[in-house]
């Protein structure tokens, strides 16, 4: 099912946070029990969701913008190797150094050696999905290098020894009181009287971070865009902490997925409208930083970029799934996803939660990576994500395709069919012929017996028990519509009155209708 684009599809290694450690079903079951988490999530996603709808409806050309975004990205995916070379040439010409990393292990090693070369043991960080994906913080920590997150929400997660559960609002699962407790315990100079007033909380974080910014010699960032034509990198953010990281230190190391390339400078115009509106529900994000190599004696003097593959060429080679690489990490899909709203991000295991995570993670690791193979099933296929996605990724269609890949992969390794396999086979046999279905529908009265006096079925065996765990099934009718229709036709024939059909439309075909 995959196409060969001439790029070798390298399997990403086990290092990093792309692989779930548990199947979605069981993780979700656990997370669902956390009432506080659900209340927090519901509140936060609904707030952003409403804001997004407002600012999106302001734009008369939103659909055209989405279309443009999607087209630009399609074009990027079709010409990726060429654009990457163009970017490399431009970036290098302006004093930057590019490092290519096949997987998380390589990327982590490159960043480590760059930091080691500076002799520093503490670095500041701009929130970045790519470094989250490769598990950079954990890796550095194990080597005695302290990487301090400067994005407020990310800092809360880091200080709380927790994992992010949303790509835009990593601490979405924490409320103010929980945050105050974390700050009191973890920030050295935090006042013991700190309350959960947002202003006080922000001031405490600010004082802590200020000191870190002023002492940092090395910063690590991600990038929202890399512009091939000019070799420019870009980061958009809300708090300005990112800008501090991008301008104050001497050494700036950026880790960026290879799919973040945009061909031309003017393409930014489309994405700078799509991204803030979709992610924070704002017309414009407060801080946009763009840097193109060294800027005289100001700002960082050593500029490095780690270009990360980590399964992206594998995703690109999947002709039905490759559009998942269009993702600009806005998080709109998770904010509208009813499944995400109930389970939160942790249930998805990998760095990328929600609908995009359910397709991106298995695309990056391959569907045969066992835990990630449960992710494409983490959706009711309601389609809200597709409607919300600013770059029109047809997530439901990719989910279905990945399910098919999983079923195929499972069938090739499994010896005995599962209960689901047997069920699907049987249903396929029964439902691919009107005659067979008609024959089986003769069993409906037996179903009525099963339903008993109260006219409902409340327990079924096997996997069907998943249904009856919370839902009854009504007693089936005496006869199927197909049968009733045949009776009606017979009746009409016997009356010899084919032409007066209309008046008999509601004629009961038999005395008993089954209800």
């Amino acid at each position, binding site marked *: 099912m995959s196409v060969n684009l001439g790029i070798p599809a390298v399997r990403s290694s086990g290092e990093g946070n792309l692989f779930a450690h548990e199947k979605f079903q069981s993780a979700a079951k656990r997370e669902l029990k956390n009432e506080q988490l659900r209340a927090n999530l519901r509140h936060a996603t609904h707030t952003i969701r409403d804001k997004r709808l407002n600012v999106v409806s302001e734009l008369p050309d939103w659909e055209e913008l989405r279309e443009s975004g999607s087209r630009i990205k399609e074009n990027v995916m079709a010409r990726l190797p060429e654009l990457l070379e163009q970017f490399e040439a431009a970036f290098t010409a302006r004093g930057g150094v590019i490092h290519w990393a096949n997987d998380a292990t390589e990327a982590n090693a490159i960043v480590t050696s760059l930091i080691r070369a500076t002799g520093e043991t503490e670095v500041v960080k701009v929130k970045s999905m790519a470094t989250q994906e490769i598990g950079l913080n954990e890796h550095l920590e194990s080597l005695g290098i302290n990487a301090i997150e400067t994005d407020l929400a990310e800092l809360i997660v880091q200080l709380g020894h927790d994992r992010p559960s949303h790509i835009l609002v990593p601490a979405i699962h924490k409320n103010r009181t929980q945050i105050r407790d974390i700050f009191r315990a973890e920030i050295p100079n935090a006042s013991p009287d700190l309350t959960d007033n947002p202003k006080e909380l922000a001031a405490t974080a600010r004082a802590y971070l200020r000191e870190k910014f002023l002492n940092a010699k090395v910063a690590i960032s991600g990038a929202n865009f890399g512009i091939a034509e000019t070799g420019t990198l870009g980061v958009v953010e809300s708090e300005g902490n990112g800008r501090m990281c991008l301008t104050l230190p001497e050494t700036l190391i950026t880790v960026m997925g290879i799919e973040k390339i945009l061909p031309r400078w003017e393409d930014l115009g489309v994405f700078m409208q799509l991204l803030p509106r979709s992610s924070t529900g704002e017309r414009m994000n407060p801080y946009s930083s763009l840097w193109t190599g060294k800027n005289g004696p100001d700002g960082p003097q050593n500029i490095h970029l780690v270009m990360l593959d980590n399964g992206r060429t594998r995703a690109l080679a999947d002709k039905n799934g490759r559009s998942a690489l269009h993702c600009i990490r806005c998080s709109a899909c998770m904010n509208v996803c009813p499944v995400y709203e109930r389970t939160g991000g942790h249930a998805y295991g990998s760095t990328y939660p929600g609908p995009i995570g359910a397709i991106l993670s298995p695309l990056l690791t391959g569907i045969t990576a066992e835990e990630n193979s449960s992710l494409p099933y983490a959706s009711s296929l309601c389609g809200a994500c597709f409607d919300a996605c600013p770059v029109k990724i047809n997530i439901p269609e990719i989910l279905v395709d990945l399910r098919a890949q999983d079923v195929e992969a499972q069938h090739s390794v499994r010896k005995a069919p599962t209960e689901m396999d047997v069920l699907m086979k049987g249903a396929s046999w029964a439902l691919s012929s009107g*005659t067979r279905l008609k024959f089986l529908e003769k069993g409906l009265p037996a179903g009525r017996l099963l339903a008993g006096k109260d006219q409902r079925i409340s327990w079924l065996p096997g996997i069907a028990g998943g249904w009856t765990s919370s839902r009854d099934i*009504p007693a089936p009718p005496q006869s*199927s519509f197909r049968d*009733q229709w045949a009776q009606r036709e017979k009746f009409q024939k016997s009356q010899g009155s084919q032409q007066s059909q209309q008046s008999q439309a509601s004629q009961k075909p038999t005395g008993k209708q089954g209800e």
Partner: protein
Amino acid sequence: MRIALFSTCIVDAMYPSTARATVEILERLGHTVIFPKGQACCGQMHVNSGYFKDALPVVRNHVAAFLQEDYDAAVAPSGSCVASVKHQHPMLANRCGDDGLAADAEEVGAKTYELSQLLTDVLGVTNAAEQLGSYFPHKVTYHPSCHGMRLLRLGDRQQNLLQTVDGLEFAPLPEADQCCGFGGTFSIKNSDVSTAMLNDKADAIEATGASLCAGGDASCLMHIGGGLSRRGSQARTVHFAEILASTREKPLVIPEAQGGVVVLNGGTR
């Protein structure tokens, strides 16, 4: 017009009253309804669960059954099945490299309508009370199913029709556009998440104070109705076609809620 009815597997086996109501509405408007005998199912469950190989014979059967007959339009009282016929059938045929089937599926798909689509866009029904004699003196809320709403872009068609039924008191459903949590095998494979979604939907329905929640997809209605039944709710679910078919002379009778009898299964029309 000559209209071919696709009764869908769930309606055929579990809710024949919904198919009868569909026939009744169309005949009341003066159209001829035919029932292609070979039909069985759209195969959506197989496709959505990733069982493409097992889906193929089901899809072939549907396409063949509807290709053989002579009609102006096909109709199904189910948004998701129509979406499957229109979108999934050609997709699956293409995936399996069967160009002939893909072309046939496109042909059948182009002639297939969801009931409210057919009534509104083709048959010009704008007022159910006037044009169909619809009468239903009950408080009704309405859940728009995801596939009708997002794949077929049905918009307010079903709701608009309901609101023109004589005697009907319409109660808007809070957060109506939220998925009810059915999702085919999702309700079995991720039963816990599905249940959490279902409970919120049931809460919303109960909050309206309506005795019935109408919808256009038998499968979602069976799921929501099954949940309401399990929690002993007084509210039940009903297909909008059955409300449209209800008249003063032959009203749709709602059975007494005996500890919440599950899904309204027709009535004595």
